[in-house]
């Protein structure tokens, strides 16, 4: 049992170690001191306010990771999370701004709309694959481009907010109508402050964190405890055996893609809760980062969480580097990239080792029995 945990952690730890060393080499070449740089980052990251930032950043990353992981468990590559979450966000923002309901229903409406849009858009790629054999990697990427360059640009103009100032009197600029207070998921500072001191500097811990936790829990339950999840995983491991075992693989592909899209739709919700609307500067790249995090976490709900926190830490804490000047903040990008690549390779190596070991152990056991 301990051995299993050890093996499971061996690969990512090795990857992080390798990446740290490699990045240190880059830093040294660039003339910076890696130890100071890492030290600065850790010190910065230990402050409560910054930890709030890290959690805020990790929340959408985690959801995005789960969305990608749903596909990965079935050997489907939903690279379209990027387009799905943005499309879902703008539609949800528009719908959310057009109504005014009691808080619970208002928030629920926004979330549901986002999930439906995400699921539908991913479903397009799913239908294309199931009915016409179009590779989902290419179709989701094309759909991304269509969403980002085309649909969203158009919708932003169509749904441009009427007035020019918002509730606080600040300049509105380009973007959708602001959502009423009742539709914004509140922060959960008070919950966190039960354990810690008061959070300063106006930092707000997003309530979407709870949504993320719920997503993670549901992911685990659905995949590991339901029959649908069993069918999905079986198809991912061995589609032939799954078919012989009664699984309808076409329905599975469609189902998995849609489910992945549904979760993807929630990725933008933290930003919506913060901004109250959708604008062209809406946070980007969460789709690809989510894929990285899913790969890093090996599609495991806990692993993805750790991966999300790690990447969020790197993204956030690197901000201090600009201030202290001990290194350029972009070093974290290289680190993230190397961590990802190293982890992916390490997993493969460990997996192969584990297979050999298990086989050897089982046959030694049998040989032992036979001799008795």
């Amino acid at each position, binding site marked *: 049992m301990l051995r299993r945990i050890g093996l499971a952690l061996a690969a990512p730890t090795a990857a992080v170690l390798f990446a740290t060393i490699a990045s240190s080499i880059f830093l040294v070449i660039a003339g910076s001191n890696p130890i100071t740089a890492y030290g600065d980052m850790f010190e910065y990251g230990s402050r409560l306010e910054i930890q709030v930032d890290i959690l805020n950043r990790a929340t959408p990353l985690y959801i995005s990771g789960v969305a990608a992981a749903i596909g990965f468990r079935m050997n489907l590559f939903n690279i379209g999370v990027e387009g799905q979450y943005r499309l879902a966000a703008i539609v949800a923002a528009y719908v959310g701004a057009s109504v005014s309901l009691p808080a619970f229903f208002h928030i629920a409406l926004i979330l549901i709309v986002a999930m439906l849009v995400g699921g539908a858009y991913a479903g397009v790629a799913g239908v294309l694959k199931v009915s016409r054999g179009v590779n989902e990697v290419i179709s989701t990427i094309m759909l991304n481009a269509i969403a980002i360059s085309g649909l969203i640009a158009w919708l932003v103009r169509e749904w441009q907010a009427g007035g020019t100032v918002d509730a606080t009197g600040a300049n509105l600029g380009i973007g959708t109508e602001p959502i009423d207070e009742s539709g914004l998921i509140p922060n959960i500072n008070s919950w966190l402050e039960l354990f810690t001191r008061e959070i300063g500097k106006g930092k707000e811990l997003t309530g979407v964190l709870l949504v993320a936790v719920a997503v993670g829990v549901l992911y685990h339950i659905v995949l590991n405890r339901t029959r649908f999840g069993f069918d999905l995983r079986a198809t991912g491991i061995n589609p032939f055996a799954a078919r012989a075992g009664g699984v309808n693989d076409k329905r599975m592909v469609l189902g998995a893609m849609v489910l992945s899209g549904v979760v993807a739709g929630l990725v933008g919700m933290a930003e919506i809760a913060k901004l109250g609307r959708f604008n062209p500067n809406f946070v980007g790249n969460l789709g690809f980062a989510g894929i990285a995090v899913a790969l890093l976490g090996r599609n495991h709900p806990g692993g993805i969480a750790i991966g999300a926190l790690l990447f969020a830490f790197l993204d956030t804490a690197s901000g201090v580097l600009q201030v202290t000047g001990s290194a350029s903040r972009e070093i974290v990008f290289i680190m993230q990239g190397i961590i990802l690549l190293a982890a992916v390779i390490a997993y493969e190596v460990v997996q192969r080792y584990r297979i050999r070991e298990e086989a050897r152990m089982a046959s030694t*056991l049998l040989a032992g029995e036979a001799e008795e």
Partner: protein
Amino acid sequence: MTNAIELIGITKRFPGVLANDNVNLTVEEGEIHAVCGENGAGKSTLMKILYGMQPADEGVMRLFGQELSFSSPNDAIDAGIGMVHQHFMLANQLTVLENVILGAEPTKSAGLINFDEASSHLEEVGKAYGLTVDPNDLVETLEVGERQRVEIIKVLYRGAKVLIFDEPTAVLVPQEVEELFRNMRELKANGATIIFIDHKLEEVLEIADTITVLRQGKTVATVKPQNVTATDLAELMVGSELPKPQISESSNNNTVALALEEVSVLGDDERPLVDDVSLSVNKGQIVGIAGVEGNGQHELVGAILGTQEIDSGSISLMGKDISSQSVRDRRESGLGYVPQDRQDEGLLLTAPLWENAALGHQTSRPFSNGWRQWFIDKVGSRSQTEMIREKFDVRTPNIDVSAHALSGGNQQKLIVGREMVAQPSVLVASHPTRGIDVGAQASVWQQIRDARSAGLATLLISADLDELIGLSDSIVVMFRGKIVARLNPSEINPRSLGAFMTGAALETES
């Protein structure tokens, strides 16, 4: 006469299996030497060692008197040995010429292939040995017999003096077999030495100069064809006596459990893979399907299971028509399935045993529960798996290990077990004891016999004559998609069974 090949004391172990046990083989120069044995006897392993694809654990190999050892096929090729594989190693989308010269391409400057030289060399070789092929044909357009000729030319092109043929007639029709034997005699006349693996006794007697019989990894005899009959060979291959058919009481209660009516499955080119097959299996009965692989059995099984669409006919299970039901529905209606390739079709290798036990039954208790069987019942699954492990003697440290850690025999016991405990009304068992050790084999057989007594209807597809004759209440023979014979196992002998299986009987009967 010098000896072309001498294999002395060759031993090869795989995890859990002793494939070759102190095997001796001596092949004289210029002769056609057959190596016989049933499936799993160790013939392929021996040839792979000879061709450098596997290293031997123990033993000595001599080629024309010189002791050699090979670390890769390249070494064997350089030494003048060529292998004509049973499953052709030809790339379909390349031309004959490209396939033949691969690895030994003649080049002009800058790495450009000298196609003219290659082409003329190939034609020379072809003429010298009487093999005609068009170098510019795409391999995928060739018939099976022609592809085999390309395989042969591939090794001759490199100047092979010793040719190994691995079950060459397995995929040929009678006329193509004649052509092949003609080519072999031609090769022999030109000085080649031929080793060929075969388990079709009539053929072996016809073409070979010497025959070596392997059984369970050991050499049991080396004989001359003029001194033996096919029956003698069969006995050498399978043991001192053929298994006696079951004398136990018939448990056939005359209720039809599985019925196929005029079922046909057409292939891509509209040729029937399953041709108008009608058969039925009663409760408490085991019907065996005999036949050389590739005569439609696989497609028939697929049709019954539901993974293969049928083009005409109907299938019914316990009286209900299941012809258009999904695989899952058929399983839930009581159809059990032991696949012919456990790793490809039966198991999730990287998943733990208890999940594998649920595969195919995940919509029923105790594997799932809750409203509309939505939830996987982990506790129920685990206890069910423990029960399977106990009852079916699946040797494993625990039920959490991944399926790939188990030996083939234990994997098969798990699969048989999971199907049996679901208490199906019909079991389709395809090659249920292929490639597993003797102990597991006996265990599986017993389970099938017990289930039969309890009323299970079993359709047994197998290439193992022991198994078919020993277990079946009645046997049908499939050849080219059709049922060509319905036999009583207590009246049968391997020779006539073999004749039906290879289609020879058709000619004598008409």
